[in-house]
């Protein structure tokens, strides 16, 4: 039994890395634009379909294909923000962006149905179905590669945010958009590029999701509810929090799954409730700024 639990913990950590990749984009967008991108789940699935097309029709390796799908998803994100979200202003902005991103999700989902139909697909490659045996644990290559990629991408986003002028502009905009504009930051540009980056990472998340799960055009809805739970638990806007929450929740789910697969999903959301009761801002969420 102990070995089963250890294996479940290892599985949970590796799968958590994959979910972190998907959640990081969502929490980055929330942090800067103060909106929840409901389309994030469907965009992950779009990323999976792009990888599918490159893999099946052009025989491009899943990881090599990211060189095409990441820039493509970045452009899609920039267009979404520029065309729809940028125009929303005023007190109703947050509510309106929920509707607009939901509408975007429906349009993307409909287009995917039109192009690929309702049948489930799964990405395949030699490393998707093989594992390495280390210290008695079976570690699937795809999860190992995905976890390593997640760490690299999250470290890259951290470096972007904390080591570059653009990153400082992003963090300043996150804290006080008005003040940021008044000291020369083009906050519209910051918002557009951040949305682009937040969507670009769904290409990687989508490839990993598609390689480890079967998917069809409406797989995005289950995904978005999980991603929302993760970024709330991690602390809205916190990238490190998204990683910690992904690993925590997926590990918990994986361990509970040993005894009761039915309860595994319930425990996933129950953990969210319990943590928020104790710590309402999540693992790494900021308390509201103190009044001056």
């Amino acid at each position, binding site marked *: 039994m102990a070995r089963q639990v250890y294996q479940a913990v290892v599985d949970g950590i590796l799968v958590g890395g994959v979910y972190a990749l998907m959640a990081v984009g969502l929490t980055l967008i929330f942090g800067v634009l103060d909106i929840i991108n409901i389309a994030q789940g469907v965009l992950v699935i779009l990323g999976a379909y792009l990888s599918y097309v490159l893999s099946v029709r052009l025989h491009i390796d899943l990881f090599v294909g990211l060189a095409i799908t990441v820039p493509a998803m970045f452009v899609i994100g920039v267009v979404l923000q520029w065309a729809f979200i940028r125009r929303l202003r005023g007190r109703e902005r947050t509510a309106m962006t929920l509707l607009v991103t939901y509408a975007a999700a429906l349009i993307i989902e409909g287009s995917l149905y039109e192009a690929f139909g309702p049948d489930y697909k799964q990405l395949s490659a030699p490393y998707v179905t093989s594992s390495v045996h280390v210290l008695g644990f079976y570690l699937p290559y795809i999860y190992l590669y995905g976890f390593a990629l997640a760490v690299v991408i999250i470290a890259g986003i951290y470096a972007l945010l904390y080591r570059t*002028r653009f990153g*400082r502009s992003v*963090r300043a905009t996150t*804290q006080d958009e008005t*003040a940021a*504009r*008044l000291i*020369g930051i083009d906050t519209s540009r910051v918002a557009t590029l951040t949305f682009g980056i937040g969507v670009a990472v769904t290409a990687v998340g989508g490839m990993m999701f598609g390689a480890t799960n079967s998917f069809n055009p409406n797989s995005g809805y289950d995904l978005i509810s999980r991603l929302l739970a993760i970024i709330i638990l991690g602390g809205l806007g916190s990238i490190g929090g998204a990683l910690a929450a992904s690993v925590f929740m997926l590990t918990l789910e994986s361990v509970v799954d040993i005894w009761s697969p039915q309860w595994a999903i319930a425990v996933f959301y129950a953990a969210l409730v319990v943590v928020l009761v104790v710590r309402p801002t999540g693992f790494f969420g900021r308390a509201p700024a103190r009044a001056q």
Partner: protein
Amino acid sequence: MLRTEGVRKSYGGVRALDECTIEVGEGTVAGLIGPNGSGKTTLFNVITGYAKAEAGNVYLAGTKITNIAPDKVFTLGIGRTFQLTRIFPTLTVMENMLVASRHARAADRKRAMAQLEFVGIAGHHAALAGTLSYGQRKLLELAYVLVADPAVMLLDEPAGGVNPSLVNYIADRIRELHAAGKTFLIVEHNMEFVMGLCDRITVLDSGTVVAAGPPDIVRTDRRVLDAYLGEDVEDST
């Protein structure tokens, strides 16, 4: 250097600025005073592009900058501080400075550190800005506007809410910058501070300019006394 001409701005049915015309000469320290709600901060907002003027124009060194985006106004050379400080609390003090500087090269760090030394908070450069006291935040705000080397600095109540010795310290820093040729437009309720610092004062009441001129003239103007100053000024000077 900075001029507004017939600026008009309303919020709902309330006219916040009406035919508001002011002038700030190059290398001068200009004061903008008036009772609460007289339109001082609104005028700052219009000048910096944060609020759109319904009529009238704003000129910087002869160039029309009316209703252009705040980030462009800053880039053109107008820096601003706020009545309630608006620093970035989870960035370090140095990062706050670098956000405002045009680039992030080593020279900018050096320049940023020099400005922090000038305002006296260089020792806190690695601290999170949110851990600073209110007075230190005021100084940081002044420093991060300075680091961009604006042509005109708009200071919104620089002496507001800080202790008397810090008020004097801030006044001394402004005098030094003035001596170096910097141009200021200052909104302030502390009459001693304004009268002692400014070359020229403009008085707003209900969004309209009721008087403008050197401090000695303004403080004795009957319209100003009626609108705002009353006996307080005579008591304090």
